[in-house]
């Protein structure tokens, strides 16, 4: 008798994954990078990619420097993945003040001129469109408060239509976990390898601290 497998045993292919809907949800506005290169937000920066997006402005003395420092740490953790399959975009909330040079200065000051990380500015109309599309709260007061928007991190994997957000000042492990939730589906072998590494880490923590310390 010929036997046929009912199930593949792998979730790597993702045949049923939905197609990209980002083109309808993410404004394809014209922006300029900190190197003064013109880009289209969706077509050039997001389409088919896994991206981490935050909003800031160069003269922000509150959240922005802290969040940028946290993103530098996240960038370090992601290592060679940055610029290859994960990208970071920091969009100014105050395009009237932040031209490409101002953003480059901000990035330099915070040691954030790193691979796969772009600081972006554009027309105020387009930045507002982008801000609402990516960070809208559906609350009139919150949506008009620029400081509120500076305190969120949007994670999108356009290739699998996955959107998440996380507070950037959450623990580094929490932020990394959220980024991992937007990773492309892995093969069974990859997942088993990840589980093996994670178990090793848990074992080390239990040995050292007596309990599992990190998520």
């Amino acid at each position, binding site marked *: 008798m010929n036997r046929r497998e009912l199930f593949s045993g792998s979730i790597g292919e993702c045949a049923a994954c939905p197609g990209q809907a980002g083109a309808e949800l993410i*404004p394809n506005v014209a922006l300029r990078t900190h190197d003064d290169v013109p880009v289209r937000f969706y077509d050039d920066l997001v389409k088919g990619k896994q991206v981490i997006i935050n909003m800031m402005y160069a003269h922000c003395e509150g959240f922005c420097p802290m969040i940028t420092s946290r993103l530098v740490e996240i960038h370090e953790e992601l290592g060679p993945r940055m610029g290859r399959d994960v990208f970071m975009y920091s969009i100014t909330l*105050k395009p*009237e*003040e932040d*031209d490409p040079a101002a953003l480059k200065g901000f990035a330099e000051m915070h040691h954030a001129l790193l691979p796969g990380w772009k600081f972006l500015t554009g027309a*105020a*109309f387009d930045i*507002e*469109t982008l801000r*609402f599309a990516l960070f*809208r709260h*559906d*609350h*009139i*007061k919150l*949506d*008009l408060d620029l400081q509120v928007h500076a305190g969120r991190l949007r994670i999108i994997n356009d290739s699998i239509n996955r959107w998440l957000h996380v507070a950037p000042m959450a623990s580094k492990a929490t932020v990394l976990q959220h980024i991992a939730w937007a990773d492309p589906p892995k093969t069974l072998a990859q997942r088993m390898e990840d589980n093996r590494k994670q178990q090793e880490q848990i074992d080390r923590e239990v040995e050292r601290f007596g309990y599992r310390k990190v998520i």
Partner: protein
Amino acid sequence: MLIAPAGQGIEQGIDMMRARSRARVSLGGLVLLLCLGLLLGRSGMALAADACEAESQWVATQTQRHFMVLAGRSDVFYDRSGPAFVMLIKATAETADIGAIGIYADDVKHPRFGAVPAATYEEFLSESRHAAEVMLRLEISGPQYERVLGILQSWDRRVRETALLYPDIAMDNILLVKQATEELNRCGTTIAAYALDWGLEDEISEHNSARRIPFEYFKRLRQLNESRHVPDAAMPGALLTASDVPQNLPTKE
């Protein structure tokens, strides 16, 4: 319920405004000023300061008058809400520029967001006598007019480019009326304000559906600003009636 913006309505509204033989709203100066400001790298704060300086130096004349009208009606749509929009009028002895943006009813009484057709806004050129309607007409300065016009033009562009800020036009309209009315007080107190901010003190947002909020907001502003309301008797007679130009212009499908 999500309702798509009405591109057709905007075109219709704009065509009608043009066909009325009234002078087109002249924005060249404002746009040029904004562009120059950006080119020179001036901050938004500096531009705002300039705007207030212009307002403080502005001198009212009898040859050119500016009005902002907040108009709304209830019990039109299925949820008993209705049109609510912001209308701007600039009038001289010979011409009047009129335009309105907000929610209006289309031919089958569905809510649409965008440039309001003349036939609809003309119903609010003179004071309403119906309990289900509200109209607050304020005489404003030239600089205030230009600033509010900039806000309305930005929303008109959002409709044209399908770049609205919310998936529900009711929310867009709340933001529009909030921005337009609060702009009047940017450089000083022109009207008695109501804090439409969805905060704990905002009873209008607390007790009404999003689609009805602008209507209730206009009603409250009318109560708070009764003394500032310009009655029909104080308006140029030509601005109180509908234009005699035919309104049945072709619409774009």
